[in-house]
């Protein structure tokens, strides 16, 4: 079929409790309203206690598998630098990583059993990934709340999508409580322009 839109894959990764749920909800809402078949897959339970967490968002004309496998992700959106590096093997050839530069030490690093690797952005680039590394925490705080890191990341991601700004704004308005809307709109724009 010639006009079949191939399935696209977005991974959202981070540390349990960082609020990746809103990001995947927003993408799901947006893509559904753009007329795609969509699957979003989350992991609940144990790993939410500060562990490494991943959400898969897949869209296209017809999506089967709910998960993204090694070498398949078009985009990896990461809330934390080490997590971007952890999931790098899932990035496809020519794929892009959009990551927050914040670093959160995992327990093995805290206890001294392991080290937080240096120069991760350069290393990921050397491995062939396109990397947008942004201090999303600073931008989120500039927008008015450290909690808006997710929307800053999505703002940046929106750069690479063929979806009009209006649709993103509608998704934001539909999912963010009214009193935080302005803040999130600002965070989105800051991310987009970063």
């Amino acid at each position: 079929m010639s006009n079949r839109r191939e399935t696209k894959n977005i991974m959202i990764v981070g540390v349990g409790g960082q609020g990746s749920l809103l990001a995947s909800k927003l993408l799901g809402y947006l893509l559904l309203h753009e007329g795609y078949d969509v699957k979003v897959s989350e992991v609940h339970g144990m790993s939410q206690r500060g562990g490494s967490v991943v959400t898969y968002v897949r869209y296209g004309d017809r999506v089967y598998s709910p998960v993204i496998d090694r070498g398949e992700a078009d985009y990896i959106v990461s809330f934390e630098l080490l997590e971007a590096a952890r999931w790098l093997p899932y990035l496809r050839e020519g794929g892009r990583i959009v990551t927050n530069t914040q670093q959160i030490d995992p327990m093995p690093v805290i206890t001294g059993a392991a080290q937080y690797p240096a120069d991760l952005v350069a290393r990921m680039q050397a491995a062939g990934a396109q990397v947008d590394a942004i201090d999303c925490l600073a931008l989120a705080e500039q927008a008015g709340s450290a909690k808006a890191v997710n929307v800053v990341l999505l703002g940046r991601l929106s750069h690479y999508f063929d979806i009009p700004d209006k649709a993103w704004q509608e998704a934001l308005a539909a999912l963010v409580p009214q009193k935080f809307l302005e803040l999130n709109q600002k965070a989105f724009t800051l991310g987009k322009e970063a």
Partner: protein
Amino acid sequence: MKELMLGNKAVARGLYEAGVCFISSYPGTPSTEITEEAAKYPESEIYCEWAPNEKVAMEAAFGASLAGRRAFCAQKHVGLNVAADPLYTMSYTGVNAGLVIGVADDAGMHSSQNEQDSRHHAIAAKVPMLEPADSAEALDYAKRAYEISEEYDTPVLLKMCTRVAHSQSIVETGERTVPEKTYTKDIAKYVMMPGNAKKRHPFVEERTKKLIAYAETSGINRIEQGDGSTGLGIITASTSYQYVKEIFGDRVAILKLGMTNPLPVQMIRDFAAGVKRLIVVEELDPIIENHVRSLGLKVEGKELFPICDEFSQNLIAEALGEPVPAGKTLDVQIPGRPPVMCAGCPHRGLFYTLKKLDCTVLGDIGCYTLGAVAPLSSIEMTLCMGASIGAAHGFNKVLGEKAAHRTVAVLGDSTFMHSGMTGLANVAYNQSNATVIILDNSITGMTGHQQNPTTGFNLRGDPAGRIDLEALCRAMGFERVRVIDPYDLADCERVIREELDEDAPSVIISRRPCALLKHVKHKPPLTVSNDKCVGCKSCMKIGCPAISLKPSDKTKTGVLSCIDQTLCVGCGVCTQLCPVDAIHGKE
């Protein structure tokens, strides 16, 4: 209306549309959201509750079905072991109004202590099992399960798995209709004593034959012929179907099973006859495969695909010689990020104390299982819910008093109500010198904050009956019941020491609500005084995610402690460990 919906929410929607009036469940990942989502419908339409355990939940659901209202109960795979007793005999009694049992497997063990395949229960209990492969099927099969239940007079198992339960896909919703039945006394059907059960067993065997006919013709199992280009014929179900489609699209013929017990016979024979190579793709145990083989057909399955862990599209592709994309790798070790106790978790201080006292800690299942992880590394055994007390009793009985003076059983409030109470009864009755510590954080933490019989609130958060743990333990014969605050390390240590030394069984209740509960008020974050800190790392012994070390040339060890101001909730446990009084609250 078209909506993107979580698999578990789609089940809840299906229950709603099927006219279910009663749900009793016990939480367990990945099944929990079914009941939580159903509870969002008005209580006048669906009554929802958390039961103390799965067995009670299933019996309650059975009672509601008996009374003539469609009923449901949900649990994770291991929960079905707890509820197996009622299930196996409900198969004999059958139902009045439809009765469906949700069970969620966890291939890959994202949040479980084993990887058991609950299809074995369906076979052993001789009840039908439906397995949706996405949210739309989850909604549809939930409704269908009630038709089957009433038509064939049987409880029906609705099997989810992590990837169907916790994935959102598109569903279309419908209207709710509520069929009701009246209850009529029927001793021969509902009183399972030998004389009656003897008559019901042949009914069960007959029913299975009829259900096989349903499996052949009802359309719940379907064949997708494909374009025949590969000659492959794949029999599959659930999320494995999605992986197969992802790789092959229309290039293979597929027998997609929606009902995995009982399995069709003729349909499989016909399907096999039309393909060159017959393959079963199923996660976990070779159940479909063994069935196909028992029909005398040549089939491949577990020689290609593993029994352990979950599948994915690449795994299927690799096993069947299809191309797999290469992933990029880094030339640097990425440290793991295991789950940890949250900052301010009340369990932390207790495990620090148990480690300090060099106790043998027989553990249980909950957030506190993280007490087995470095640096606390305290728990030495975790088996199944409630096992801590049972095991401590046996441990102390054979090793005698010396062991008893250093062994503790540790379990949470929800776990205690679930199946710890009966273990405690054994300690009281058969008299061992066990020291049992109930970690009462006023909630079922691990599964995401569900109320339980000790919290005083019901599933909806409304005030409910509250079981008094101290009074309960006393009533069970424990004269020594102590309450401690796990934030107070000195007191914890003193009381635990006293109870271990004592030649009598005792219960210690370590009480402090979960730090993540909304109503819990926190103190401002603590800070480390750089002038005072000597970099001794004493505060690192508790594994708090808010505390880390930063390099410094001021100290002998070359480090200073620092506290993350966004994570710290000011619990003050680290303050008590600091030998130089360097950790303080804001003035």
